[in-house]
């Protein structure tokens, strides 16, 4: 194994060990189970965004839309249709993915800031629907009167409703499937065409890669996994409100990805952890917590453009 592969392998093992044992050591350093779950859920959202940003080279500023659709999908399903956590997650994911797949062809011809602007615009459409359609979504008050349901496996029932640790591990299983799928895709021939597009779109086009089509597929995959994250987020809170769809939420995902390191597979997860912990700690100290996160973000972008994980990588390499 060459040193780079070895480092990547070590990093992956460390990440999984930390995630698997998190409920046991997190309380010891002042955290709590929900905090760990939030890191994993938002980490998945940021990693999904980064599938597009870091590996295809396309910046979406509207991923909250699909995150929020996943969240409303699970909430509405459990409240109005089927009181099942599993069915809810699938429904939320499908809604987010289908919305992404339909909107995709309208935006994939755009590049750079134009792409980002149009993704915001489409995102706001969903925000206003959720905001205005009070009778179904609860409007500004959010969607209440539902909660995650125990998971019945036939031989046993997992009480994710009251056991925060059990819920954490459910989230981790879903996270593992989603992240495993993304890693798989990135190592495939299709994944290499995405990296090719990021590296040099013109060259990719003239190597016979229909760039718009490939970006559309990458976008849809990214929307799929961010809506999985959204569904888990709603289950975590037993609640959804339109802020999950708002463009500032999209901005948070971008901050997490860039903060952690968008050229690294695990970078956005680290970014999400830093973001969530800072938010948790600072918001108990001051209302203006976001200005501190912002300052930290600016410093990282200015001095360490490859993110926090980029710094760690450099330390390990030297």
């Amino acid at each position, binding site marked *: 194994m*060459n040193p780079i592969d070895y480092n990547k392998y070590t990093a992956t093992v460390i990440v999984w060990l930390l995630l698997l044992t998190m409920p046991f050591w997190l309380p010891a350093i002042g955290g709590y189970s929900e905090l760990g779950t939030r890191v994993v859920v938002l980490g998945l959202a940021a990693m999904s965004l980064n599938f597009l940003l870091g590996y295809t080279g396309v910046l979406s500023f509207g991923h909250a839309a699909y995150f929020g659709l996943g969240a409303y999908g699970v909430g509405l399903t459990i409240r109005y249709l089927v009181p099942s956590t599993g069915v809810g997650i699938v429904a939320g994911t499908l809604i987010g993915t289908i919305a992404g797949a339909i909107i995709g062809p309208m935006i994939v011809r755009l590049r750079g800031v134009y792409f980002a602007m149009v993704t915001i615009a489409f995102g706001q459409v969903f925000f206003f629907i959720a905001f205005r359609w009070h009778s179904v979504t609860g409007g500004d008050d959010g969607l209440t009167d539902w909660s995650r349901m125990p998971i019945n496996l036939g031989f046993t029932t997992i009480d994710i409703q009251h056991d925060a640790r059990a819920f954490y591990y459910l989230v981790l299983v879903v996270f593992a499937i989603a992240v495993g799928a993304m890693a*798989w*895709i990135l190592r*495939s*021939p*299709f994944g*290499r*065409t995405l*990296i*090719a597009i990021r*590296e*040099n779109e*013109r*060259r*990719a*086009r*003239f*190597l*016979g*890669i*229909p*760039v718009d089509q*490939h970006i559309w*597929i990458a976008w849809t995959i990214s929307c799929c996994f961010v809506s999985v994250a959204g569904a888990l987020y709603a289950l975590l809170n037993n609640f959804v409100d339109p802020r999950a769809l708002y463009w500032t939420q999209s901005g948070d995902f971008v901050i997490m990805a860039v903060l952690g390191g968008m050229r690294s597979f695990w970078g956005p997860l680290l970014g999400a952890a830093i973001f969530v912990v800072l938010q948790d700690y600072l918001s108990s100290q001051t209302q203006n917590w976001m200005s501190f996160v912002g300052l930290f973000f600016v410093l990282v972008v200015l001095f360490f453009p490859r993110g926090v994980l980029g710094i760690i990588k450099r330390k390990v390499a030297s």
Partner: protein
Amino acid sequence: MSLLRVENVSKQFGSLIAVNGVSMNVEPGELRAVIGPNGAGKTTFFNLISGFLTPTAGRVTFDNEDITHMLPARRVWKGIARTFQITEVFPELSVRENLRVPVEVAAGHRLSPWLSADDDGEIRARVTDLMDMSGLADKADRLVGELSHGDQRATEIMMALALKPRLLLLDEPTAGMGDQETYDIAQLIRKLHKDQSLTIVLIEHDMRVVFHLADRIMVLAEGAMLAEGTPKEIAANETVQAAYLGKAAA
């Protein structure tokens, strides 16, 4: 039967006519050079063939199929590959990875979520062949962005070749190269042309390369065709000498 037929193509940008009614037929196995002073419209003419631009008038036919308005990626699938005047590679990927992308596309795997062990083996073997052919084997795992200009050019040519094209378009393959690098690239092109009887159209400023390699030469000046013929005919053509060669040779 011509492999490539370009009939009376023109390209106009606003009031500027970059290419004005140019025609060209390229036979299978031929190596055609396109020469002309700066601003003669050579690269624009190339872009019309590869699909980077579409002509405002005229027709482009490849293997008896009208490709005038076909998308670039589709033209690649038909068998037209190109390089660019300013090297276009994937700078942050290794030589091996740069070559692997077109090899996979050519093998029909661009959308594959996975490869069988057999397919993977074949692709690796093909990438190795391409590196051996061009002397890039010892730089296989270096990032292309860190290589010398000449090696980057060679990588780009091999990427185009990885597509198994029936027509290879090379836009100034030796631009910005020293004597040794120019010689190496010229030998590589000659080998591709002779050994694999690959049809090649190239734009080139270095007249030694052009007269060494080309079967036929087309001369463009101010967007229009000035002359066309064998290297001997072009060397003897007085209009060409006046417009171009005279200045270049002096």
